[in-house]
């Protein structure tokens, strides 16, 4: 019986990779003090905390409605403002339609740098600049949304059918007409899906903005945590869970219709 030749085994390569990853893990684990024994030793403290945080304080729920509304409002402003700014940012960073090489490279790097900072960093920065409160949160999420949407959207724009843009150009259209008539109409459905996706991220993000003083439900969370009112903390976390899941389901349902 003729057996097919076995695939080449690159054992050395895999071994090197495995040892490298193992070393990285061991080094990280040791430096951050990862220990299962500590986890077991602290189980008593942990169970006390869990007892204290259950049952959730349902009487606290009515006082959460206002802050939750604010949280969703922050997410909404952040998404809409970010979505509008993301259009030119994404178009200029899409190679086939970007007006010239310099704009493309500058905008591309701008997008990458924007994406490196997490939403809470922006929140801390804006809270310092414009004062504590929901406006700082809305600004932070606007920047964050630009980062998320423009990256995804520019990839969609790069994948468009270029015959249409050429058709606009060939019939004497300006660059703006090429974008407005030949480019964007092709990608609106994707754009809408990305905006909704950013809204989901923003709703989740806006829940914790208050930890750094940028408005929303997180502000209350922070004060209750500081006072060790863990029954109320649990109530807030459960409410966050429900709101996030509801908005996610809504968004997924709409996105499914779009595509």
């Amino acid at each position, binding site marked *: 019986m003729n057996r097919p030749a076995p695939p080449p085994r690159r054992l050395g390569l895999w071994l090197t990779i495995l040892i490298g990853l193992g070393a*990285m*893990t061991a*080094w*990280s*684990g040791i*430096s*951050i*003090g*990862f220990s299962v024994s*500590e986890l077991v030793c*602290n189980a008593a*403290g*942990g169970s006390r*905390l869990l007892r204290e*945080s259950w049952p959730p304080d349902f009487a606290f729920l009515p006082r959460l409605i206002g802050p939750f*509304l*604010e949280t969703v*409002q*922050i997410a*909404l*402003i952040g998404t*809409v403002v970010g979505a509008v700014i993301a259009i030119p940012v994404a178009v200029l960073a899409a190679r086939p339609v970007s007006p010239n090489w310099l704009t493309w490279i500058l905008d591309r790097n701008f997008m*990458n*740098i924007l*994406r*490196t*900072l*997490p*939403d*809470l*960093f922006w929140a*801390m*920065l804006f*809270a*310092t*600049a*414009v004062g504590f*409160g*929901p*406006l700082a949160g*809305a*600004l932070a999420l606007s920047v964050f949304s630009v980062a998320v949407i423009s990256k995804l959207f520019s990839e969609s724009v790069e994948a468009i059918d270029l015959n249409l843009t050429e058709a606009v150009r060939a019939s004497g259209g300006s660059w703006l007409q090429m974008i407005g008539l030949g480019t964007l*109409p092709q990608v*609106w459905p994707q754009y809408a899906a990305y905006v909704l996706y950013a809204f989901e991220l923003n709703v*989740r*993000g806006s*829940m*914790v903005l208050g*930890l*750094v003083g940028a*408005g929303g439900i997180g502000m209350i*969370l922070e004060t209750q*945590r500081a006072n060790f009112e863990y029954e109320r*903390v649990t109530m807030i*976390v459960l409410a*966050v*869970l429900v709101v*996030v*899941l509801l908005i*996610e389901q809504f968004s997924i349902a709409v996105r499914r219709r779009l595509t």
Partner: protein
Amino acid sequence: MSAHPLPARRWRPGFASWTTLIVGGLLLWSLWAIEASPERLARLPAQLAQVLGFFWPVDWQYGHTRVLPAIVESIQLAWIGTIIGAALSLPLAILGASTLFPWAAKVIKGISATIRAVPEILWALYLVPIVGLGPFAGALALGINSVGMLSKLGAEVVESADLAAMEAVEAAGGSRLAAIRLGLLPQVLPELMAHWLFRFELNLRASAVLGVVGAGGVGGLLLNTLRYRQFEMAAAVLVLTVLVVLAIDMVSGSVRRKLLRG
């Protein structure tokens, strides 16, 4: 203009204008609710420009002595979080594939959706009192969220896998476990590893903020320097974070592309 202009093509005008109207209305209502008056918004650019000026010159000394070690800690806890997530999510991804285990899949998907809905910083809120202030709590929080996301993405990868190879192993007398190991894993592992790396990039950003609740990493430094208005030190935190994250993104991104191309 030609003599016979084509009739303007209309892109579902009803839908588009309704959406714009509703979103615009909600936007105005929200702006009113958070008291972002036009006057306040008009003052914004000047305010931002003024604060931006404080961030110069960057305090490199502080960057070297305090920020770099904190960033290293962020990387470490992102890494541990990813390893926890990858290790636990692998079996969950297989059990969560509706093509293989229809019943288990429903349960696992529900659990992972619940985990994902809670931001990692809230997990850290509970873990800090349990395991104490420090990066260990942060790593566990990231691990929990990573499991949630990776088992969902992993299950989708497994669902899209070609089941013929598994059937072939079983037809040749292999057990279910052998079918998974020989017929499934070789197909899906590269894509799974690409997701793990992507999660590492996300964890790196998330680990940066965990310091806000005392769970290690570089976030605590930014919070404190900004609180005490030490802008030049805060600038060091920002610049170094951007540079390190960019570098790691580039490396991780190129490895991911390699994995997906095979």
